[in-house]
């Protein structure tokens, strides 16, 4: 007997994409993020000047307004603002993606174990996560960056390029995992009782396969939303650290541009406005993207 099988229903990702495409805010966020990524990938050829070129100062042309030579003008330090802003994009993305990659790995492992195993393990791990949530991360970063900067002097670690920046990324990641863990725990807790997981258990699927092939992929949409939000947060955090003068002197960061130029706001506003706009666009992009992903993967939430 021949029958026609019903068409395979679209998967969770495809359904999410259909919904995401209809979300204008989400699409705008995606475009902005894509723009930042494009800038980060092409800045090395697109920037008109070397980002460390201070020759404008040597020829008496710092704090000059936009011109054909310097499209966004030069800043207080004699840098070409456009080049510095373009070169700031990879730093921002490295901070955002790096910090959230670390936070995601730690968060998913701890949250996943807590949600799947439950009981005392769940209690202990969640209290551990809460402990991390009440630590004043910003002050810890400032203190550790300072201490670390002293401790590595004369060691092999000093040769690591952008060590200060990497320390900031690592700390943002190490202190940014609790929200991911809480979300992962909730998802794992919900999914471990789902019918398809019970079915998998019945047919003898190993625990590792259940976790890796059934629960984790279904928990990812919710986690991605958090991660997208976290990227924007991490970029802002690094900006603040740099703005306070504790950033990596050798890294090109939008926060550092703001720090060095905010006192010239009235004299050479382009030096502050340009990095400010770059931060705004990037963080807005990730936040809109996260909002769009929320609507796409959790449509009932919006309803």
């Amino acid at each position: 007997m021949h029958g026609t099988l019903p068409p395979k229903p679209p998967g969770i990702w495809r359904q999410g994409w259909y919904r995401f495409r209809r979300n204008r805010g989400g699409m705008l966020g995606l475009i902005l993020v894509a723009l930042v990524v494009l800038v980060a990938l092409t800045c090395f050829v697109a920037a008109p000047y070397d980002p460390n070129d201070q020759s404008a100062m040597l020829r008496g042309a710092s704090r000059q307004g936009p011109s054909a030579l310097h499209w966004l003008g030069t800043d207080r330090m004699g840098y070409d603002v456009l080049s510095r802003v373009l070169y700031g994009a990879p730093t921002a993305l490295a901070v955002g993606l790096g910090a959230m990659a670390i936070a995601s790995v730690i968060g998913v492992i701890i949250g996943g174990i807590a949600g799947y195993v439950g009981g005392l393990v769940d209690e202990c791990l969640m209290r551990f996560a809460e402990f991390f949530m009440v630590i004043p991360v910003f002050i810890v970063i400032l203190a550790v960056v300072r201490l670390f900067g002293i401790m590595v002097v004369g060691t092999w670690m000093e040769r690591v390029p952008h060590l200060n920046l990497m320390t900031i990324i690592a700390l943002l990641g190490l202190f940014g995992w609790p929200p991911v863990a809480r979300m992962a725990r909730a998802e794992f807790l919900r999914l471990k009782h789902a019918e398809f997981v019970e079915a998998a258990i019945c047919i003898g699927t190993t625990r590792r396969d259940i976790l890796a092939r059934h629960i984790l992929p279904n928990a990812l949409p919710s986690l991605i939303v958090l991660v997208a939000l976290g990227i924007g947060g991490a970029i802002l955090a690094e900006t603040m650290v740099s703005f306070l003068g504790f950033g990596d002197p050798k890294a090109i960061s939008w926060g550092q541009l703001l720090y060095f130029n905010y006192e010239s706001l009235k004299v050479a506003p382009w030096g502050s406005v340009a990095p400010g706009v770059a931060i705004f666009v990037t963080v807005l992009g990730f936040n809109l993207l996260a909002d769009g992903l929320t609507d796409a993967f959790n449509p009932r939430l919006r309803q």
Partner: protein
Amino acid sequence: MPKRRTLMQAAAAAAVTAAAGPARAAPPFFKLYLMIPNNQPARMIWGTLAAQQMSRIGIDVVSSFVPFTVIAPRRSRGEGKPHPDGGWDCYLERYYYNAIKPTPNTLFHSRLMPPGGENYYYVNDPQIDASLDAISNTRDDAERGAAYKAFQKRWTEVEPLTILFYPQDVIAVNPKLKGFDATTFNPVFFPQPEKWTIEGAGRNATAAFASWAPPASLIPMYTTGYNESNIFGPVYNRLYEYESWENKKLIPSLATGHTVSNDGRTWVISLRQGVKWHSGEEFTAADVKFTWDTILNAAYGSQLRAGLLAVLGGTENYKVSSKYEVTVTLPAYNMLFLDWALGALAMMPEHAYKDLRPESLRGHTASTWLGTYAVKTSDGKSFTARGGVGTGPWIPQGYDPARKAYKYARNPNYWKPHTGNVTTFYIVNIQGTDSVLSALKAGEIDAHDPMYDIGPQVSTIDPAWGKVQAFDSFKWQHICYNLKHPVFGTGVDTPLGRQDPARAAEAAAYIRRAISHAMPREQIVKEIAGGYGEPGVVPMPWSAPEYDHDALKPIAYDLGLSRQYMEKAGYEF
């Protein structure tokens, strides 16, 4: 026409270059750690520029933005170790002498190395020492003038530090504030609100002055910096003081005069009678002895100790000869005795401070202005102090942490009349140039200290809310080096120094000169200091009569010359 193979090779080379980046630059000659204090964005800018210029002559510069609290302990340890071993290599600094008469002898003599002295850089040059001794000890003006010239000449030969520029002090004040012209900006001349008049504010005006960073201690012997002197200055007096910034004339203050023996060694100082401490106790010669004893007592850890010891020789060389007279027998005549020991050291009250233990002094209310303490006077009365106890025109009213404000009340028993209408005075800690100008515009302050470097912002100040005044600052900005560093200090680790150890110091001097010629001083003044300053050469105030304008010429910005000096030190480009 090039062959196809040649073209293919060129294309391949271009592709490799594009993928792997241009060929690596030659390895740097040596590594240098540059600490840039993070409390002044302008200095951070020229610090970054200086680091980049050094890297252009083959130096691997590891720069860091750090608070001065990181630099101070590293340089004070007195061991001369390089940065990786807990000491330091190089940092940026603004410096000034504590007296109008330039006193390089308090800073660069080999006798004054830390931890007791302020020669943090370990300048150790016999010719410089000889000229500094002559500056200190001669009573002949012509001889001293020649010694100043010799010091400056030798300095330009070895350039122990790189003097970047002489900044002007640019201050914006409330246009209604009169009498600020009498205030000068070396900390010796702290703000003098007793001379201020706020027009239209009646007879009981309130004035406020902004100071950048919080002080470390408000006991005068612990510091000579702005952050502290701004605040403790209005409370205390010195034995002599400068009449005004315009005439820069030293006149008696708590002293009424002095006699000096022909050999310049024996001084009899007469003290003003009837002067009262804020507690009501009378100021006497015992207070002068107490002040010097305390500074010279190593247990108190005063950074003025080495300097005062060099001048006075020891506690046995001065005595109270009567209630209002002190007799001093110096080991040798020293110009610093009048210009610095009498003219710059604030007198401290014996009755109020004698029982404060050395280990607790920095944390005491007299130092922090937090809380109160009782001061017993000889007539059995008790005075409640809210800060330091001095003889000065202003009585501390404590520190308000919430407002970051130090409050003062006019001293009604001051031995000199107040000439202005200010009766309540505040010093507030405001950080940031923009913030201080906003505070001035909002009427929250009436003046500020010169640390804000408002020069580049002058064009944004509306005369309706800010009157801009510029003064010769008697300061300089420099890059200072640890002269015990094996490369740019002693030179033993330079190619020339290794090849011929007898020429090691010469090699180190070449490196310092190379760095010096790599600094675009004129552009730093023009672009970062807003044009308020002069390119630097020697650590002498630009407008001091002792500055040898005839002999000293600006140091050329010339990277070619820099590289030549590096080559003389044995480095090959």
